[in-house]
């Protein structure tokens, strides 16, 4: 079968031959110098590229992949070593990133390659400038890294089941990003019995803001600005972007804080010239109307770039969402009121005005029922090795026990 190869070089290749090449090439040692060197070079190449400069998500990726960060990861890896056991790569990793976030395939690949794995990445036919830039730079840097060139394969294909089947049959670990439907569709395709699978299904995220702390803050603008970044960078479609804001506090305090916050948020959105498309705007209005009819929402305020649906109760919330700048809002008297609300689907809680110890106690009481990340406002989108309840770095490794 012929497939479109994108990395290590753009050309049509035989799928079988390309897979044979990757499978036959040796795994590198975890955090081998050659890999760290390559990643650091790739990071520099992104920083230096004039086209890449237009895309903040590429800059964030390059920042995340710079030498100092890689060394930190290596130190974290060294800490995971246990007496009597050796950390080794899983083998061949098959990554299926979402079609619509342009940088996830690099993050997924990066943690895997640092662990020493050989990698096969499926890219969708949705070609974006960001993906094009990344693949171009990747191939250029790959010229001087032959061991990585032979153990890396990125293919562009649609939903051809035979291709996914052929790659899966050779994989030791499969990573599926991109939501429930993707996970369900691809999970039906068998893996070798020993292979592991990491899945990233649809998630829901929300913010909890303490009204009294908010109102006491000397400068409230940065809070709204951080929240704006969390929420609007990916048009509120990132799984970790908040869709619901809980105000913790008295009714009066929450109302005052909310009015001030939404006003600052609107000012910042205007300053940032944040614009949604008419289609997104329409989808948002349609969603708001449906929620209003469904008795989940009790008030509606349109701020232009975003809209707010007030809730009188949250037990009927479906967690469906339209993205594009729609925020639910609900007041709670205390954080523990959220205990019955949190479900397995909840991923990120962004907070303001809470101590780490309060949140740790809250997470302990949840005891894993939901929420994989509790991070301060402004860090919702910060990717790291702990994601969706996994330590990605350890997931790409295995322990070899030596007695």
């Amino acid at each position, binding site marked *: 079968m012929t497939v479109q190869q994108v990395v290590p070089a753009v050309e049509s290749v035989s799928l079988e031959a390309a897979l044979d090449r990757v499978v036959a090439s040796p795994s590198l040692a975890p955090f081998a110098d050659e890999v760290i060197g390559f990643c650091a070079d790739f990071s520099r190449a992104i920083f230096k590229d004039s086209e890449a400069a237009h895309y903040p998500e590429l800059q964030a990726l390059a920042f995340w992949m710079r030498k100092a960060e890689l060394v930190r990861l290596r130190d974290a890896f060294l800490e995971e070593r246990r007496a009597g056991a050796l950390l080794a790569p899983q083998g061949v990793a098959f990554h299926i990133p979402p079609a619509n976030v342009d940088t996830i395939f690099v993050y997924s690949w990066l943690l895997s390659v640092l662990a020493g794995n050989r990698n096969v990445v499926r890219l969708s036919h949705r070609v974006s400038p960001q993906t094009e830039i990344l693949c171009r730079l990747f191939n250029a840097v790959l010229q001087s890294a032959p061991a990585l060139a032979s153990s890396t394969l990125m293919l562009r294909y649609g939903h051809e089941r035979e291709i996914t089947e052929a790659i899966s049959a050779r994989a030791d670990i499969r990573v599926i990003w991109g939501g429930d439907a993707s996970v369900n569709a691809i999970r039906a395709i068998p893996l070798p019995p020993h292979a592991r699978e990491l899945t990233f299904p649809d998630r829901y995220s929300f913010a909890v803001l303490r009204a009294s702390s908010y109102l006491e803050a000397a400068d409230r603008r940065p809070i709204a600005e951080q929240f704006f970044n969390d929420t609007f960078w990916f048009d509120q479609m*990132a799984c970790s972007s908040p869709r619901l804001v809980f105000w913790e506090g008295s009714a009066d305090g929450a109302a005052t804080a909310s009015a001030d916050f939404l006003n600052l948020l609107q000012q910042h959105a205007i300053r940032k010239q944040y614009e949604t498309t008419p289609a997104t705007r*329409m989808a948002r209005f349609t969603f708001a109307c449906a929620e209003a009819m469904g008795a989940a929402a009790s008030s*509606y305020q349109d701020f232009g770039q975003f809209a707010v649906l007030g809730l009188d109760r949250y037990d009927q919330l479906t967690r469906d969402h339209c993205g594009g700048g729609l925020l639910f809002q609900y007041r709670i008297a205390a954080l523990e009121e959220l205990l019955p609300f949190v479900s397995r689907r909840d991923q990120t809680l962004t907070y303001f005005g809470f101590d780490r110890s309060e949140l740790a106690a809250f997470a302990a009481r949840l005891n894993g029922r939901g929420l994989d990340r509790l991070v301060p406002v402004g860090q919702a989108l910060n990717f790291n090795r702990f994601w969706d309840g996994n330590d990605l770095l350890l997931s790409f490794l295995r322990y070899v026990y030596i007695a």
Partner: protein
Amino acid sequence: MEFEQLLALRQFSLPQADKEAQLTPLLNGLTAWHRERCPEYARLLEVIYPGYFEAQRVAEVPFLPVGLFKTHRLKSIPEEEVFKTLTSSGTTGQQVSQIVLDRETARRQTAALSRIMTHVLGPDRLPMILIESASLVQDRRRFSARAAGVLGMATFGRQHFYALDEQMQLDGEGLRAFLDKFGGGPFLIFGFTFMVWQYFYSRLAGTGLDLSNGILIHSGGWKKLQELSITNAEFRRRLADEFGLTRVYNFYGMVEQVGSVYLEGEDGFLYPPNFADVIIRDPLTFAEQPIGQPGLIQVVSVLPLSYPGHSILTEDLGVVDGIDTSICGRSGKRFSVIGRVPKAELRGCSDVHAVQAATAPPAGIEART
């Protein structure tokens, strides 16, 4: 003036100020009617339009986004009064609109459509050419919204001649026979815009066919013709030049407001009938646009009693080109439809497959009949 009077009045005859004065109380009445009978609608008004009491102008009537009819079967009648449910056509996997009709609303729709069509066709049924395959309406298993649209129009004709076969090939012999028999007097041609162009005009161009007694009524949107860079003006010019076909009427309408048909005038603009109107809104703020500024088309109609669809914000883009300034003797707004709102490009780690479904191409010529 009540609906029946607006209907009886010569269509397209109300100057905009009169129309505003007539429609506003009727639409207010419908808002109150549906608020009383459709709990979801009442709840929506309460939340989305808090403090809303009554519109002073047509543009103040609350509107529902058209997409709601895809996710909700909204009705203002008890289930036992449901006479039929209309559905829009759509590609597989796409959600379709569900419009619930009782006998009275269905009757109003039929009466309204008839008033509009007879405005250009005259009172008599005319011999009729349909740019369709007869199998479209014969095969009940595949009975589609498109077929329903064709059958609806077929009632305005007689001696129906289906000009295409199942492979979309033109039956030239049958066409000649039809024209030999009826071509000397007025006859009706109906088809979807793209099909008229692709399977009729394109096949017959250069043959010197005489269709000068014909009246063409067509609908279905310009998406495919835009891809071929054929504008409405070009479409009309070519039909006139090739076949002497000068009475050409496009119309704009949708399953969510059947019967409220916006028919083209001789000047090439679309006109709302007496009992309906359009408002163009800014696609981002939903504020009413001035003349000449394109935006989302909101349609209002006094027909719907059985479902709260008297004021709908569509996902179509259009522009009001003028008000009470028609050169073809019509009053009120004249407008053009520009196309659909481009599909959203969703970002973020939402579901890959859902995104693909959401961005699937629309049903094309069948979508907006």
